[in-house]
């Protein structure tokens, strides 16, 4: 059963990923991406990482996709079609990608992974405790770093998106 679900998910991921990078309508591409992200959260469910799956759905499928859709709305005419890449660049990229896939798969399949079977699943509380633990193996420091980073990005995004002339206008108004 799980096996079948996995294959279905895998098929969805690959098909929609390909669609996402080839679609000529930007909004379609975003939607395809959404499917991919949802399918990935399915994989997280499959391996019993429910918290992570929820996170994936909430932040990615919820937040990021909406953000991207907004930016598409801001910058694109809804009917406009994307330029296609030249054939040479497609061929180069394709060869490169296939080569990369081949190389990586070769590396993966030649490496003997020793699977460990006693997996029990993860409790959300464990994740939370560990995240804020400052003892050995705790993740409080990266957590803080990430939060500062997020703050910085928040401010940065506002400043950049606001644009120079808007800031200047504001400046004038203050005066």
């Amino acid at each position, binding site marked *: 059963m799980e096996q079948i679900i996995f294959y279905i998910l895998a098929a969805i991921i690959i098909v929609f990923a390909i669609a996402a990078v080839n679609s000529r309508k930007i909004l379609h591409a975003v939607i395809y991406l959404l499917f991919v992200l949802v399918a990935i959260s399915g994989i997280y469910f499959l391996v019993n990482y429910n918290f992570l799956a929820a996170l994936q759905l909430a932040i990615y499928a919820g937040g990021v996709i909406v953000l991207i859709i907004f930016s598409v709305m801001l910058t694109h005419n809804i009917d406009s079609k994307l330029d296609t890449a030249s054939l040479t660049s497609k061929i180069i*990229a394709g060869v*490169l990608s296939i080569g*990369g896939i081949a*190389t990586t798969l070769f590396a993966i399949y030649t490496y003997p992974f020793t699977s460990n079977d006693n997996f029990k699943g993860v409790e959300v509380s464990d994740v939370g405790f560990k995240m804020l633990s400052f003892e050995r193996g705790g993740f409080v420091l990266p957590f803080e770093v990430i939060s500062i980073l997020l703050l910085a990005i928040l401010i940065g995004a506002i400043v950049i998106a606001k644009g120079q002339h808007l800031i200047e206008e504001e400046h004038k108004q203050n005066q």
Partner: protein
Amino acid sequence: MNFSYTILIPLIPLFVFLFVGILHTKLTPKIAGSIGVLGLSTTTLLSLYTAYKYFFEVGKVGEVYQTFIGAKTTWINFTDTLHIDMGVLLDPISIMMLVVVSFISLMVHIYSLGYMKGEAGFNRYYAFLSLFTFSMYGLVIATNIFQMYIFWELVGVSSFLLIGYYYDKPSAVAAAKKAFIVTRFADLGFLIGILILSYYAGTFDFQTLNDPQGAIILNGIGGSFMGLSVLTWALILMFMGGAGKSAMFPLHIWLPDAMEGPTPVSALIHAATMVVAGVYLVARMFPLYYFIDGGFVLQIVAYVGAFTALFAAIIACTQNDIKRVLAFSTMSQIGYMMLALGVSGYDGHEGLGYMASMFHLFTHAMFKALLFLGAGSVIHAVHSNLMKDMGGLRKYMPITNITFLIAALSISGFPFTSGFFSKDEILAAAFEQNKLLYFVGLFVAGLTAFYMFRIYFSIFWGKDRDYKHAPHESPLTMTIPLILLAILSIAPGYIHFSDFISADRTSFVAHLDFPLAITAVVTGLIGILVAFVFYKKESNIPERATKAFGAIYTWAYHKFYIDELYLFVTKKIIFNVVSASFAWFDKKVIDDGMIGIGNATINSSDKIKKLQSGKFQDYATWFVVGAIALVLYFLYKN
């Protein structure tokens, strides 16, 4: 006997040179001239005194004339054994040369007081004369071959300066340059010869080199190169230097042009002293030349001398510029001296040629200087060098006429003149050794008489030309030297040179060989007679003779086109082809090559710059390529 005072002989002219040279703008010509004459008189007295002391009091120990070192100091050290000394070497030939140089130089100094009067560079002229005299003294008294080379170069440059005395005349400049470069080229040989010789001999010193019992002559050190021993090569190369200085064929081309200098200079440098330096060099190194390889090089010397004597005499018959005739005559006479040296042996009477050569050097210096000074006197009067502008001058210039005649007789070997004796010795020496050379010598003697009297008759006889103002006899300062030299063109003949100078330094008795002497005199008289017929009166005989000789005359008149040949080689080949192509090569290949390297850097950086296109997708492509390559590398590394 302490000869250390002889160091003054070169030093006085040096001092005069420095004094007059540095102050030449401050001194009046009169003072400069008198300083020069005074300095030279002192050295002349010193030379005569030395000669007297040496030849008659202390020189001879037993039967052999000794070598004295008047003074000697190390000048520079090269290796542990090789070092250049500066010193004074006194032996018969150096003292004889001292006398010749100082006397002729004194005469020229006095003569120039009149001849150069009113010239702008009078002081400079006297400074250069002193420089030349200093250098010539240094050359003559050199204790070693390198000292000789040093002064050899210095006389070269003095000659350059004096030929180029009229430096605003392009022909004089060209002549000066030519003289210097040609002799310099010959000196290249000389220098290489010295280097070879000194390397194998381990010394520059004449006494060690020339010692007939020394290791160099006995053992003949060094290997062989192209069939001849290295020492022979060294001697050939050194003779090349001598040939250059003495204007031997084929390095003679500078001498006729050198007549662009003031006439007294030609008398001093290009007739009496400097040009015989080559002869002196061979004489100085005579034991080496004689003993190494059985005198192989001496044969060369003899043939070169003989050929030059003949060659120059033929040309002399065709030239119209009296100074050039005299120049070719000088070449011819030096050829004689070389010939004499070349046929000379070493012991006793065998060394007749050596003695004859030195004897002729002495007498030739006197009468040739006289000829030049006489010619100068004539030129001074008529302001031209060309024979066609002269004629009938005997009425106007009696003293010049008489003295010139004496000199001409002397050079033609007329009996009882000094030239007769010395030339006879040379012919006798040649007759004993090599009949071919003897006949060449004899023929040249006839030619000499012919061309000398050709110019004599043309100048002093024949009819007057239309002179702008009547020629007049030169002032006393010029005629007194003429008279003194005229006396000395006759008197030395009666000195028994063989008492004083010989190859092995012992006296021997040289007899006058009457059959040979009479032959020579008759030949000379024929020459004079022919000249008399041709030129005593204006006639068309010379022209007919010219026509008869046809091509040969034209060739000889153009000096057998040797100058043109040289000009072709130097100008066309070396200057225009070699040097120009080198300059081109430097500009286009090397310089542009270096610039090309720079440009290639710029170009390639232009190319590389394109990689940084600003397209981040390109970067990503390369990044992925690199990542894959790295993965592959690590996969396959093991």
